[in-house]
């Protein structure tokens, strides 16, 4: 069972030497941190390594955390920098935002988001598949906005950019996600026919 204490209270207990309080903090944030790491690494093993690394880094610098922002915002900025460093190290092929060559080439898709009747599998499966096809930045920004309960300003702080720039990036990321989802669903329809 997870602790009902706030993040700040758990941090104070951790700083006083209570490691179980930090375990509660980890339990509270691990799913999101792991998901965010997955958006960058695209595989579970690397994501788990990155996520663990983030929590250890956060523990080491916990006494430097000034509590001017939410703990989650601070933690996500650690995830972002750690994941980016890991990506650079492993030279993972993060497909470029505009690189459509790697995508499945399908005939022009008529507009209309809800034009499909293809699934045996659920739409969430296709949505997850489309997120995996996004660039790391796009996938991260969507995850931060929808699952991290982060405002545009907080995301800007995490990514080290302006809030306006985050707004534009989010808009583009959603557009690309929509396009990829439509393309994947059309592809599925074609296969069924």
């Amino acid at each position, binding site marked *: 069972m997870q602790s009902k204490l706030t993040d700040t209270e758990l941090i104070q207990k951790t700083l006083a030497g209570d490691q179980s309080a930090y375990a509660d903090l980890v339990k509270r944030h*691990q799913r999101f941190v*792991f*998901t965010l790491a997955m958006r960058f690494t695209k595989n579970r093993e690397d994501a788990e390594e990155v996520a663990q690394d983030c929590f250890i880094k956060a523990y080491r610098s916990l006494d430097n955390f000034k509590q001017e922002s939410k703990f989650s915002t601070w933690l996500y900025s650690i995830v972002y920098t750690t994941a980016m460093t890991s990506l650079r190290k492993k030279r993972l092929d993060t497909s470029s935002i505009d690189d459509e060559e790697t995508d499945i080439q399908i005939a022009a898709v008529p507009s209309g988001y809800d034009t499909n009747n293809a699934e045996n599998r659920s739409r*969430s499966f296709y949505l997850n598949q489309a997120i995996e096809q996004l660039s790391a930045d796009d996938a991260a920004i969507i995850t931060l906005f929808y699952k991290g309960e982060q405002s545009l300003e907080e995301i800007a702080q995490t990514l080290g950019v302006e809030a306006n720039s985050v707004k534009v990036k989010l808009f583009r990321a959603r557009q690309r996600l929509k396009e990829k989802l439509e393309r994947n669903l059309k592809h599925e329809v074609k296969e069924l026919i």
Partner: protein
Amino acid sequence: MNSIEERLWDYIDGNCSATERETIDLLLIESDEYRQKYLELLAFNREIAGIELEEPSMAFTYNVIEQIRTEHARQPLKAKVNQNIVKTIAGFFIVTLAALLIFIIFNINWKVTGTHVNSTPVKMPDIKNWLSGGILQAFLFLNTVLALFLLDGVLRKRIFTRQA
């Protein structure tokens, strides 16, 4: 000018001004295109918000805490020593040495003339009195204890490295 989609996303996210909101409210009543696009984006928005978070392995928290514990155990002594204490000791020695140097400089007789220096011989303390049997034994005993203490430290470190 913003595209319809851009304006509608701002509307859905709550990022537009009150005036803009009113304008879009009207457009949603009057324009079929706006209404259709809005419903489409709203459905898409709900769908993204409904994505499940990934679940790490069962041992995730345990692994993190274990790694932290191991790191704590491995922490070298120099990292545990309070840096303020080190700085205070360093400061004390620097001040003492500086004071001694200043004292010596001020006490030097710069007006020495001629080739003959009338120096008084330095009187060294007679250490034979100090090296009596009891004191020497105590000194040797202390050194033996210190040597054993250091050896113990080295061996412990070696065992710990092997276990890690």
